[in-house]
């Protein structure tokens, strides 16, 4: 079975919620929309205090090309334009809306019928990209890169295939898995739309082999259309990383930054993004809800929810039996790359794939000891870097050497720190070095 060629680890999978069907989460009382829930410029609010809004109404517009529109997920009154603590832990500008009833914009098609691509022969690739851009769709795997930007590659590059990332290599998370089992038809149409938008005839849906039911179902559905191949992959983290996934599926390696995946002909989109694209293009429904896994070993019952964006995470945790007494850490996302949240009042955003509850005893790192030079971090690094060396350079602030040792290639997957027998904070130090070096490069280029 295929997988990527360099490094990687296999953490305990712990897919506790894999058998739980997606449940519709209750509406919040107040929904909160941070203006920066994507990579790029923050969105600009277009509503003011006291305005009445409906479900699916735009409340903030993209602040540039690399940015995304934001839509209200609820109907009600704009309470205030204020701030809220988001998943980054910082207080960020946000729109607060008091929920009143559930009145949707009339143009949204709320029926469950599948609209096939053949039903819309008039659609051109450009129409699809415009629709995706208008609907505020970003990468739903967690990176939240605006979807339309990837579909408009820089001149000179030629996309050859679209790869749908349904790997879900993060332990615990099952949102993509459940989405495939319950919305396979929509995902197939969404993939075809993305292929058309990118102007390619080959699509791949990459799924790790720990989801055999999803592989089987998607294979069955893919047989009914042209150009989509389902690729089962060996379970290995970080296979969901864009570069690792391209290597695993088509055996090509994207060169070091600033090269983009499209330089080897691939456009990667998350499976949740494909679903959102289907809804936006075929159902006129902008991005305002998503599937979120709420999980953890100590949690009463782990669930997958269809959640309106802006719902506080505490509400989802309460729906799973409440925050356990011995909780030490709440993570937005998975355990390998997710962010530890300072409070459970953080709203669900476009990039929130999961909420993971960890017991107090699991949430502390063991004390670090000196490096014994076992080279396990070097073997684990999927980018072929030497984390032991980079972290030592960061400690001595040797930024020049870090740049030479290609710190900017680091994808911050955490394999090095996961595997380190001496419990060294390798990734913390590498991150520090990476951001410093990127700053140095930027200031050098602007001179």
């Amino acid at each position, binding site marked *: 079975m295929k997988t990527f060629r360099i490094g990687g680890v296999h*953490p305990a999978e712990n897919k506790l919620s894999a058998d739980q069907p997606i449940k519709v989460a209750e509406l919040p009382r107040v929904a909160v929309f941070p203006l920066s829930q994507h990579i790029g410029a923050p969105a600009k609010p277009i509503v003011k205090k006291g305005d009445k809004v409906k479900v699916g109404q735009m409340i903030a517009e993209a602040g540039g090309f690399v940015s995304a529109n934001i839509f209200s997920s609820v109907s009600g009154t704009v309470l205030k334009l204020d701030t809220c603590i988001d998943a980054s832990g910082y207080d960020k500008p946000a729109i607060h809306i008091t929920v009143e009833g559930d009145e949707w914009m009339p143009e949204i098609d709320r029926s469950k019928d599948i609209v096939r691509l053949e039903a819309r022969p008039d659609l051109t690739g450009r129409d699809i990209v415009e629709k995706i851009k208008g609907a505020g769709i970003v990468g739903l795997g967690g990176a939240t890169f605006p979807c339309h930007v990837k579909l408009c590659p820089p001149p000179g590059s030629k996309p050859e295939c679209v790869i749908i990332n349904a790997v879900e290599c993060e332990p615990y998370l099952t949102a993509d898995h459940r989405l495939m089992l319950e919305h396979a038809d929509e995902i197939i149409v969404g993939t075809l739309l993305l292929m058309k938008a990118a102007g390619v005839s080959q699509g791949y849906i990459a799924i790790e082999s720990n989801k055999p039911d999803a592989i089987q179902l998607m294979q069955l559905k893919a047989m009914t259309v042209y150009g989509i191949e389902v690729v089962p992959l060996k379970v290995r983290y970080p296979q969901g990383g864009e570069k690792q996934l391209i290597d695993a599926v088509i055996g090509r390696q994207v060169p070091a930054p600033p090269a983009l995946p499209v330089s080897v002909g691939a456009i990667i989109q998350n499976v949740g993004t494909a679903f959102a694209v289907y809804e936006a293009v075929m159902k006129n429904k902008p991005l305002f809800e998503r599937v979120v896994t709420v999980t953890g070993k100590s949690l009463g019952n782990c669930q997958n929810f269809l959640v309106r964006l802006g719902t506080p995470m505490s509400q989802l945790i309460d729906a799973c039996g409440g925050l356990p007494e011995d909780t030490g850490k709440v993570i937005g996302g998975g*355990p390998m790359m997710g962010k530890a949240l300072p409070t459970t009042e953080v709203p669900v955003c476009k990039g929130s794939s999961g909420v993971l509850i960890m017991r107090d005893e699991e949430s502390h790192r063991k004390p670090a000891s000196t490096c014994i030079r076992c080279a396990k971090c*070097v073997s684990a690094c999927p980018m*072929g870097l030497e984390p032991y060396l980079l972290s030592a350079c960061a400690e001595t602030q040797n930024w020049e050497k870090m740049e030479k040792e290609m710190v900017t*290639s680091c994808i911050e997957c955490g394999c090095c720190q996961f595997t380190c027998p001496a419990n060294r904070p390798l990734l913390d130090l590498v991150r520090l070095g990476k951001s410093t070096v990127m700053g140095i490069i930027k200031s050098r280029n602007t001179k």
Partner: protein
Amino acid sequence: MNKLTVSLSPHVHSGDSVSKNMYGVIIALVPAMLCSFWFFGIGAITVTALSVASCVFFEWFIGKYMLRNPQPTVTDGSAILTGILLAFNLPSNIPLWMVVAGSLFAIGVVKMTFGGLGCNLFNPALAGRAFMLISFPVQMTTWPTSGQPFLTLDAATGATPLSVMKAAVKAGDPSLLNDMPSLPDMLLGMTGGCLGEVCAVALIIGLIYMLAKRIITWHIPVSIIVTVLVFSGALHLANGMYADPMSQLLSGGLLLGAIFMATDYVTSPMTKKGQIIYGVCIGVLTIVIRTWGAYPEGMSFAILIMNAFTPLINNYCKPKRFGEEVKK
């Protein structure tokens, strides 16, 4: 609500630890240790116990009273490991005070002077052995023969396969090699030599265990063994006075060195490419010293020499970076 811990990802850990690796190597050494007790009797037990005890004591004492480490390092198992490996490199009839002196040099000078585990340039056990070989050449090179009664303290000593080989090369007379013990005897350890090095089977069991537990990778031991076989095989074909490759492989400390000494985390290179270069150089140097050097055994010096080159190898051998290859 209780306070939430906020830290950077990753939030989970493999559960691997320094002491797990150290005790893993110690477990891998158990078969060879039991064999040495069987072959060399009470002398082997005394030397091993004393070596371990003094290494642990020096590590504890220096860490506590001289380095004043806030975290005690004595429990991580590395000092026990050094003690066992040092004992494995000694004859079982060596005067006991020399064992203590060797342990002091290994732990005190080679390891703790540089800052303790992870900072030393040379393999402590091997450097300890080299120190003893130079300081006490007679006691370090009279080996009791294997398989005498268990409680013998005043054991009979005899020639080792390596001294036979050396004599053959010196005299230029291939017939001297007829005094070599048979290969099955060497495989099982029925020859003279240092404590831990005689039983090849036990050492190979240790290698398989460490590979299965992913404590080490195959690169260093296999590259050493293959190089020794190829190089000594070529010499043997050129002139019969050079011992055959299997005898070279099974004699002296070659397997002990290739499996347990050269693979020491701290003093071996970090990348696979570097590890193979390191292994090949050790193999070549070992045979060169054995054949043309002043000492019958070259393994420990070969490893120590390559330890000195490890930083250089690390500087030049980089792993294959992602995307380095041009697209297929």
